[in-house]
């Protein structure tokens, strides 16, 4: 059976060869299927199975899956396709031709012409169906001969010719379909397996071959002519862009015909239109000679192509044929007589004949272009909506609009002064036999960067030229519905590079750098080509060539290698050539560096050696090997280093055999180990281990041994513990310490335990290293061993163990650590720190036990402190219990801890504790705890304290009053107030003190009352001082009102000291009233000095509040310089340049004697130099009153003599490349 099959295949192959020979005269057949693989085919849409069996492609249906297509990767336009197929009856299939799959067409749905394979009784095999698009185009119902041509259960043969707009099919040699259709001319070929309700149905194809006629039938290159010369738009910059866009497609050769300029005789303008496949008009201006007009009309009527680009539709308003060609146009007096406006309303094109002038547009803006003819070849596969770059949206264009197809519209938004209509943006016109593509987009070169413009322009031009579009690919960077996509253009002045040198303007170079930053990688080859001339030019300076090399580092490719390798021998430029070559991916770059080794000497060669090392170029091992023993030590060292960096066994081999002077031994050893590292990484474990083992021997230097051990630990993970232990037990401390680092890098609990178990066997240094490393690992498995080390032994070891316990320990470490904490100050510090950090679920409860019941009170106290250090709120109940301990020190520690940890709800217990306390130390301790609690509490409640006050005896009351003052609410105030007339003088005083400490001004009245009425001098003093203090607490009160209250206090105060205290407060409330009060106080000689000071300060403050400021730069922040806050600043927001200024307006005239600039918070930003001017009107400045150069972060400027002025101006006169000028605070010296 097998044998027969193969015979059959051979026979088939033979027959194919025969027919290939027979048809050789017709053209070159190419096989689309290699008989073995599905290379160059790609499956789309459904999930049917495609396999290769015995030189056939077999398609198998899968139950309930959509249509599947096995598509050629390549696109074809004109061709003859032949194939054979064997289809299982009941199945449906077909051959797709000129088919496509686009993201924006039903999510990649394969669509296009399908030559039907129909096993049903209908028997339309060979008919043409438009898959995924229009349905049947050529059914076979009128072709009985063709219907009979298909044979069930046999191999059938199809011949399909798709040439131009005609598609014909033959079934087993019988003509079937003959279709003329111009919708799609390019696409892939695909083998369909129809979606099926039956699984495992099979169709087989073989002998699939094609004659690609595209190049023969289509024009080799389309000839295009751009017409320009006059335009109200910048035609000089857009024509080159249009030309480049067309030429970049590879389809067009473009000429340009430029008319005489405006007003000049036009007679000479006679382009030979008929020599071109398409005319692109970028022209609007003077009329052409009649002969030229006639030539264009003839050309078009006979099947020419015309593209109207943007303002070209402004041209020739009176030329009837022109207006028929362009469909609609604008301006130039066009109006309702020119024809209708064409709009898109309710899903269809309508003509609007309402009167009005033709042509308008609002301000430029980005707008959406909406596809209206998605099957038109110009629009095929483009998204329904895409955002066009900021452009003029042409509206109200008018014209005959005959034979016009609107491909796309744009909505002219009234918000952008638009018409509120969907205006045609892209359209085609049939004129005679000719085709016109009209795009209103592309105002200037910038708009021509829009990928949407580019795609439709090049497709539209091809369509105008040929009536078809072969550019079916939708670019990846095509705009989306809401995002504009612009394509980069290369516009830098690359010729300027040659003229650059150090110290000259870098502007042109910076522009090139910026261009390279914005260009896509696909443009790099072009940039590279533009950079290279400067590299080769003899005119270019070193700096210019250096610049090119820097840029080639970013864009360079094999194209630059010859020029760069030529530079390698240049003493000045060699490094820069390597700058570009070093990481260039092209293998040629490496080859150039290797080749240079033979030609170079000395440092230049060393540089190349280094680069080869950095490239990791293994093919360089052999040439580098020769240099390892170079007489030049620097050369040898570089070669050794490079071999290490390159790594691998070949380099290791070279290094192992090398004999080098002692001075290079460490380099050699290091490189040898680096090779081992790379070998290990690449899976050569055994060989790498051998190198590590060799290098770890004791006759090597310490650091090489360290590195070798590191390698061994990495390579032999199973033996890592013995290796580390060997290091830890070595006499060389350096090895011990390296072990510490390696432990940190070797994971695993088993490793932790294995190492920790050996702790006791190490010397002190080894122990410390291991303990630190165990701490770093944080693995709890080490805890028991670490605990032993913490308990006893040499103190430095114990300290390390205690530190480690913080991380590796847990509840079981609590007792040990608390006990250790009382042994010595050093141990205490470490132990308390570790106790605070200890984590684990039972830590708190063990601490509680120790705190309550340990035999040693010192241990208990440290346990209490630890609760605080741990911010452990669960400790409170235990602490309340401990707070009643017999030991006074423990009680006090507990009070303190409660102050930190307890809350509002614990106050009641503390009050009762306070009531019972019989020593003043206990009472003080409890009071401080309560104060700490209420201060921490957001809204403390007084009730517990107030009810305590009722029960308290006289010795306790003052403590409760203090607590109440910190609570400071109404209930507390009432309670304190009630004690003001206590029988006991001390309690009265305590009550006044409590009011004086109130957090708000509520007790002001009470205090004034006491001050007025009390006959006790001390109480009166306390009340006055408290009153003044409370005035300072936040209140919704104006300065004037406060001053009024201070005035009252002044009246009531009996002693000078209190009056002075009132005055001292006064300067904080600057206002007219304060001045009056201070002036009145001047009358009192004993207060004169203080009053004078208040007057001066108040005046100054009043003045600064009316200050206005202005600055030449960053004016918005100017006020920061006078806001009294040295943390905020004004700055120039640019580096210092002469002429930057800062002006103060004092509001009224004052006498100024100088000023101070404080820039200490930005210590480099003091002025490089300054001039100070004054003026009465802010405009006439005269000569500077002070100038200076050597400013400092704090610059004090004194005027020669005080000046009367309203405006003061500071002008900065220095220059700095990096610093701003700033002023954090500006103060004026006033007289």
């Amino acid at each position, binding site marked *: 059976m097998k044998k027969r099959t193969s015979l059959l295949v051979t026979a088939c192959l033979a027959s194919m060869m025969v027919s290939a020979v027979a048809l050789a005269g017709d053209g070159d057949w190419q096989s689309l299927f290699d008989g073995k693989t599905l290379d160059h085919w790609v499956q789309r849409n459904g999930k049917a199975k495609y396999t290769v069996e015995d030189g056939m492609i077999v398609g198998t249906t899968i139950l309930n899956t959509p249509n599947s297509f096995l598509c050629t990767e390549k696109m074809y336009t004109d061709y003859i396709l032949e194939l054979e197929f064997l289809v299982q009856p009941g199945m449906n299939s077909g051959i797709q031709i000129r088919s496509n799959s686009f993201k924006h067409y039903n999510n990649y749905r394969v669509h296009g012409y399908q030559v039907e394979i129909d096993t049903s009784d209908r028997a339309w095999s060979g008919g043409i169906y438009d898959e995924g698009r229009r349905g049947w185009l050529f059914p076979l119902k009128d072709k009985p001969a063709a219907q009979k041509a298909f044979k069930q259960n046999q191999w059938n043969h199809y011949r399909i010719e798709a040439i131009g707009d005609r598609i014909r099919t033959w079934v087993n040699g019988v003509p079937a379909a003959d279709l003329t259709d111009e919708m799609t001319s390019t696409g892939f070929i695909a083998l369909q397996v129809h979606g099926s309700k039956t699984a495992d149905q099979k169709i087989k194809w073989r002998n699939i071959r094609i004659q690609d006629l595209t190049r023969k039938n289509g024009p080799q290159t389309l000839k295009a002519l751009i017409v320009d010369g006059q335009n109200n738009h910048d035609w000089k910059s857009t024509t080159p862009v249009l030309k480049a866009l067309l030429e970049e497609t590879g389809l067009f050769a473009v000429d340009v015909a430029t008319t005489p300029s405006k007003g000049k005789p036009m007679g000479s303008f006679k382009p030979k239109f008929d020599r071109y496949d398409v005319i692109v008009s970028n022209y609007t201006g003077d009329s052409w000679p009649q002969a030229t007009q006639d030539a264009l009309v003839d050309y078009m009527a006979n099947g020419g192509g015309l593209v109207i680009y943007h303002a070209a539709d402004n041209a020739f308003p009176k030329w009837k044929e022109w207006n028929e060609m362009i469909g609609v146009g604008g301006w130039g007096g066009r109006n309702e007589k020119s024809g209708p406006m064409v709009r898109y309303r309710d899903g269809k094109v309508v003509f609007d004949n309402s009167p009005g002038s033709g042509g308008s547009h609002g301000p430029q803006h980005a707008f959406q272009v909406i596809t209206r003819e998605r099957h038109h070849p110009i629009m095929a596969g483009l998204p329904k909506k895409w955002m066009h770059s900021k452009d003029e949206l042409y509206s109200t264009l008018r014209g005959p609009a005959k034979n016009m197809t609107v491909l796309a519209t744009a909505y002219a938004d009234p918000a952008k002064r638009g018409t509120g209509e969907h205006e045609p943006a892209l359209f085609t016109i049939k004129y005679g036999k000719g085709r016109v593509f009209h795009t209103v987009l592309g105002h200037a070169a910038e708009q021509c960067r829009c990928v949407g413009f580019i795609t439709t322009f090049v497709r539209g031009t091809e369509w105008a030229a040929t009536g078809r579009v072969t550019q079916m690919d939708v670019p990846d960077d095509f705009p989306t519905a809401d995002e504009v996509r612009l394509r980069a253009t290369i516009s830098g002045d690359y010729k300027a590079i040659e003229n650059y040198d150090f110290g000259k303007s870098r502007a042109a170079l*910076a522009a090139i750098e910026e261009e390279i930053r914005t260009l896509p990688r696909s443009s790099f080859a072009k940039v590279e080509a533009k950079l290279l001339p400067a590299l080769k030019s003899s005119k270019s300076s070193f700096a210019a060539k250096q610049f090119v090399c820097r840029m080639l580092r970013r864009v360079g490719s094999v194209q630059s290698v010859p020029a760069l390798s030529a530079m390698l021998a240049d003493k000045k430029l060699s490094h820069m050539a390597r700058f570009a070559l070093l990481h260039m991916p092209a293998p040629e770059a490496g080859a150039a560096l290797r080749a240079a080794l033979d030609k170079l000497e000395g440092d230049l060669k060393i540089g190349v050696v280094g680069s080869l090392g950095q490239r990791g170029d293994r093919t360089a091992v052999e040439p580098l090997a020769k240099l390892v023993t170079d007489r030049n030590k620097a050369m040898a060292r570089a070669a050794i280093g490079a071999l290490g960096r390159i790594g691998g066994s070949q380099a290791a081999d070279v290094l*192992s055999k090398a004999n080098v002077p002692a*001075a290079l031994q460490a380099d050699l050893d290091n490189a040898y180990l680096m090779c081992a590292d790379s070998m290990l990484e690449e899976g050569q474990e055994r060989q790498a281990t051998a190198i590590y083992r060799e290098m770890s021997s004791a006759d090597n230097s310490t650091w090489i041994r360290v590195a070798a051990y590191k390698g061994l630990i990495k390579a032999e993970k199973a033996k890592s513990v013995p290796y580390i232990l060997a290091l830890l037990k070595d006499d060389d401390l350096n090895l011990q310490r390296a072990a510490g680092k390696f432990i940190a890098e070797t994971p695993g609990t088993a490793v932790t335990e294995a190492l920790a178990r050996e702790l006791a066997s190490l010397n002190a240094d080894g122990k410390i290293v291991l303990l630190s490393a165990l701490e770093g690992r944080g693995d709890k498995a080490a805890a028991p061993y670490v605990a032993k080390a913490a308990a006893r032994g040499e103190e430095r070891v114990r300290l390390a163990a205690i530190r480690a316990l913080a991380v590796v320990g847990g509840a079981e470490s609590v007792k040990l650590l608390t006990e250790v904490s009382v042994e010595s100050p050093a141990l205490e510090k470490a132990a308390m720190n570790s106790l605070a950090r200890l984590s684990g679920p039972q830590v708190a409860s063990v601490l509680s036990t120790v705190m309550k019941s340990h035999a040693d009170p010192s241990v208990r106290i440290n346990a209490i402190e630890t609760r605080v250090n741990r911010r452990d709120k669960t400790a409170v109940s235990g602490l309340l219990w401990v707070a009643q301990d017999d030991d006074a020190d423990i009680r006090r520690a507990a009070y303190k801890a409660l102050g930190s940890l307890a809350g509002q709800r614990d106050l009641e217990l503390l009050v009762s504790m306070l009531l019972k306390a019989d020593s003043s130390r206990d009472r003080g301790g409890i009071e401080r705890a309560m104060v700490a609690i209420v201060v921490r509490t957001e809204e403390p409640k007084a009730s517990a304290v107030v009810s305590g006050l009722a029960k308290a005896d006289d010795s306790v009351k003052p403590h409760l009053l203090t607590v109440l003052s910190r609570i400071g609410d109404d209930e507390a105030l009432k309670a304190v107030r009630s004690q003001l007339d206590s029988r006991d003088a001390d309690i009265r005083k305590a009550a006044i003190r409590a009011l004086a400490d109130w957090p708000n001004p509520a007790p002001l009245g009470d205090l004034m009352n006491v001050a007025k009425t009390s006959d006790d001098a001390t109480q009166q003093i306390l009340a006055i001082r408290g009153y003044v203090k409370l005035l300072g607490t936040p209140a919704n009160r104006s300065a004037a009102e406060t001053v009024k209250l201070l005035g009252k206090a002044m009246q009531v105060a009996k002693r000078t000291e209190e009056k002075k205290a009132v005055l001292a407060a006064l300067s904080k409330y600057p206002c007219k009233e304060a001045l009056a009060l201070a002036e009145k106080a001047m009358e009192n000689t004993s207060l004169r000095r203080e009053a004078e000071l208040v007057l001066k300060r108040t005046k100054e403050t009043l003045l600064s509040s009316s200050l206005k400021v202005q600055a030449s730069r960053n004016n918005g922040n100017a006020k920061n310089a006078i806001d009294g806050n040295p943390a905020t600043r004004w700055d120039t927001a640019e580096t210092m340049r002469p002429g930057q200024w800062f002006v103060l307006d004092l509001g009224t005239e004052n006498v100024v004697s100088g000023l101070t600039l404080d820039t200490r918070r930005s210590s480099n930003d003091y002025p490089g130099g300054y001039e100070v001017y004054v003026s009465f009107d802010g405009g006439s400045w005269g000569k500077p009153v002070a100038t200076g150069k050597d400013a400092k972060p704090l610059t004090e400027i004194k005027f020669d003599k005080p000046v009367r002025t309203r405006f003061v101006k500071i002008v900065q006169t220095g220059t700095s490349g990096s610093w701003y000028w700033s002023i954090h605070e500006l103060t004026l010296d006033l007289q």
Partner: protein
Amino acid sequence: MNSSRSITRRDFFRRTAGVGAAMAFPAIVPRSVFGANAPSNRIVMGAIGVGSQGTGDMRGFLGKSEVQMVAVCDVEKAHRDRAKKLCDDRYGNSDCRSYLDFRELIGRGDLDAVMLALPDHWHAIPAIMALRAGLDIHGQKPFARSIREGRAMCDAVHRYGRVWQTGSQQRSDYKFRRACELVRNGRIGKILKVEVGLPTGGGTDVKAPAQVPAGLDWDFWLGPAPYVPYRGVVHWNWRWIMDYSGGQLTDWAGHHIDIAHWGMGWDYTGPVEIEGKGNYPKDGLYNVPTEYRFNCTYKDGTVMTVANNKQIPQGAKWYGEKGWIHVSRGGLSASNEKILKEEIGPNEIHLYESRDHKQNFLDCVKSRKLTICPAEVGLRSISVGLLGEIAMLTGRKIKWNPDTEEIIGDPEASALLGRSYREPWVL
């Protein structure tokens, strides 16, 4: 490895081992002061690069009782003379030696550690050389000028078991650790996005080639960087030229990106996508971006935006489902004051605590623990800045594999991960 070959090599090694070893560079075994012959607390240090930052760092170390600063190095004579005087004044002797060439300083053989404060383009070579000589290093941020240099430095740190601390001292500042702990412990909920604000660049300057000042070794200062004539840019202003630095971006990436990473637990990883734009000076000598903004997307989809402080307030800011936290040198703030008062419980995440950056380095030199800012973390922090630089320079979205440290599918961008060294320097 074929054993007969290694024997050849070993034989030779035995013959030459010890011969002139004391003269050799850098094969010398440093005489550790922790050995039997030296006080166990003494750390003998050298300072390479003693300009303004280096002198500041050196003063910090001079203030530590356990440090003995015995050597200083700078390519500018005035710098090294001043530094030597500072050391001699501190110890009341004239023992400090000054060097022009860092190779001689490293080759002394009696140092335990060095501090490096050099321009970014000079970070890798001395560091790797010092690591190979067994020295621990306090190195200034940013960790490296390129990611490939940084990787080579990290590898050397690991290979030789050295202690490294990057000078990102914000990690030793309470408010930064506090901010990160609040974020790490979910006080603002799941993190939605991160913003990092860094200083804005200062524009450009125009300078003509000029005479190299006496006392400055210009060629040595340039070192591995491309040759350019001296144009008055040496100390400080080198930051604005891409041959030496990435400007404010890379200067500060080692601070605020570092903190943002710490708060996210991204210390040992990096973004997977980076995309952004920079404004580059249109003319003049300086060429780093003045304004810049780029987005970094991490594996879990979280986006961190890095921009200059005119676009994003300076510092690190985390936005979570329940609010935000912002930290900068100016202070710590949050969407709600209450967040800042939250206590971190004993069983929650507590970050590495260091209260004194330089002390942390010295402690780790003794304990061999990882420092608060180890090499790998320093590299990951600056990598974000360097990748941002590449994304802005190429104008493209960069796809990054943080595990293999490779740019995916963009060889031109990959070329910017490393840079060629000017001869005779090699990496």
